[in-house]
């Protein structure tokens, strides 16, 4: 009989300990999180953020280009990054890129070519499928890559060509760092 009673006391004691720990973890941590939030909000309200080190904005390369930017501004044939988009449907994750000459230059294939695309994961994709077309007086290139799901392009490798003499072309490799790319869900596919 005393054994049973002491066993019950043991059980009671361990259950009380469990409850104590559950209250500390399950209620104490949430209360702490909320108090810290309140403190930080009040602190920012009254002391501002000037004293804090900048930590909110992810640094972006100053050379990173986004949709609408012009590449090779100083060259004889600047190119506009007309469209840069990741299109997603249920099963696929495609990157679409449209480049267009700022002017109405002829024979663009002699001046620019896409070499490869580097992704966030570190993987490099070869040039993909593209062709130059002239539409509405503007010469443009449409390129498309099938990406691994969830991966994001970070850099585009191009080559520009400079005609030095009738039988000599100088190939200049270029690396273009890409800014954040919009992702759009495409329900039609």
């Amino acid at each position, binding site marked *: 009989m005393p054994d049973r009673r002491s066993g019950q006391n043991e059980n009671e004691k361990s259950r*009380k300990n469990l409850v104590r720990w*559950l209250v500390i973890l399950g209620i104490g941590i949430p209360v702490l999180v909320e108090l810290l939030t309140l403190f930080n909000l009040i602190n920012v309200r009254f002391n501002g953020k000037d004293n804090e080190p900048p930590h909110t904005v992810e640094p972006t390369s100053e050379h990173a280009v986004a949709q609408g930017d012009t590449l090779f501004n100083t060259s004889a044939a600047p190119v506009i990054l007309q469209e840069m988009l990741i299109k997603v449907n249920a099963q696929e994750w495609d990157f679409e890129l449209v480049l267009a000459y700022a002017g109405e230059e002829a024979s663009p294939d002699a001046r620019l070519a896409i070499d490869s695309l580097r992704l966030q994961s570190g993987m490099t994709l070869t040039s993909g499928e593209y062709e130059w077309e002239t539409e509405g007086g503007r010469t443009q290139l449409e390129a498309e890559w099938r990406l691994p799901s969830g991966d994001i392009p970070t850099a585009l490798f191009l080559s520009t060509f400079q005609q030095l003499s009738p039988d000599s072309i100088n190939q200049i490799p270029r690396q273009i760092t890409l800014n954040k790319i919009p992702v759009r*869900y495409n329900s039609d596919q």
Partner: protein
Amino acid sequence: MTFLHKYPKAAKVSKANFTVAFIALAIGGLFGFIQALHRTNVFRGFFNSGDYYTLLTGHGVLLALIFTTFFIAGLFVWGVTRSLKREPENMAFTWSWFWLMVIGLMMAAVTILGGLVPGSSIRAAVLYTFYPPLQAHPAFYFGLALVIIGSWMAGADWFWSYNKWRKNHPDERIPLPAFMALFTMLMWYVCTIGVALEVVVLLIPWSLGWVTEIEPLLPRTLFWYFGHAVVYFWLLPAYYVWYAILPKLSGGRLFSDSMTRIVFIIFLLLSTPVGYHHQYADPGISVGFKFYAMATTLLLLLPSLMTLFTVIASMEHGARQRGGKGYLKWIGKLPWDNPAFVGCALAGIMFAAGGFSGMINASMNINLLIHNTIWVPGHFHLTVGTAVALTFMAISYWLIPQLTGRKLKFKTLALIQPYSWFLGMTLMSNAMHRAGLAGVPRRTAEPEFNTNAMNFEPVFGTMSEMDWQIAIGGTILVISLILFLWVIAGTWWAGEKSDNPVDDYIPEPLSGVEHTPAILDNIKLWLSLALILVVLAYSFPLYEMIQDGLFSPGALPRPSIILHLLF
């Protein structure tokens, strides 16, 4: 003798409803966990971002519409049967509404999950709000319509029992648990008129191709006519538990019968005329009508605060019965080792926090700060995701033994579960609110790539820290959910059989029905008033929308009714 032995037919119906509810909870909860990891960029290996809306729709529909509706049906079958002391009147009718809802659920679920099948044309990635321009397969809308019709029949079943009971007890007051269930269903009837019209008249013909163009404003308005009241359809059964059962679990008695009835009446009156507060950013609705909705919404704080007072007073009474003393010291005497009590109490605390963020949502001007940001899901994970879901889970630890005639199994795991849910939800929701203040959008798999403000600036902390807080919170929540399902499954199949698996006696309120004015039981009066308030709230704005060319999209707007009245 427990409920199973006294009312075996009703117990079977309740169990069937709970089974469906818990399956929906398991699948919907898993989808939520996957999304939390995906959109915070912590782990993206489960699915392609293109499937995000399919999973989000599954998460929302299975949890907010299916888990809740079936759990509420099971709870009210238990509550109405027990309080009126009658088995359902006609079991064929009772099972017919259950199976109708199951067929509807299956149709909706198949269309949603069809989105995960390569090449499938059966899809419903329309989110749980499902209004245009997003379009689902027609079977999705038919399925939802069947679930709603089934729920109407369920309500009719309980009113049938009530009418039979009334014939035998002409001079008695409606028993409080039955009163709460019936008034919840009255509110459900009033608010589902809007969504029924939207689905049957607008969405089904549109999805079948019979109508090619649809003006989004009308379906949005009809949805939100229903869409806010549905929150109270989820909450009132949680209130039902807090009023009817939590005082007993605290060791005491409900503080006031009349206060409880008044709260449910106010919710019947005010739940539906507030829908416009979800449309503050919608064009086509005059700002005056939105202001009216805001004022009505803020009035709804009154019954919530009354509930806060009554429930805490009841808990304090219980604690003092257990030897509690002092102004606050009595809190320590509450049964913090009883999972059913702990879950309900923590859910109530979380609801108070959700109420504070809800005030910001409801206020027209500051709403714009957080509109369509992740703040909004942060808010409703406190209200629906905890106040309702945790209450339902917690009270299952007390109800399932009564319905199965088996003692609760894995009591330690059951005790850990509500605490872990509270911890996980605090972490997740706190970070969601803060990220919302920084402008992080809701409803996207790629939050950082879908906004002009690509570099979010949190008030404090970093985006990466918030993402991790959401992911860790979501992980704790899914572990808590697994614990819950494990305990329930263990109890259901392997719990020790007993005639009295749980103490199911519910004492009378401290201030009983003898102190309650008889007018509070006048169902016709309160229903009529509720309908009048709905007509007042919605007739003028709808007239204005028609004047503005609702049925001729693209037409120039005409002067609004306000201008007609003024000039």
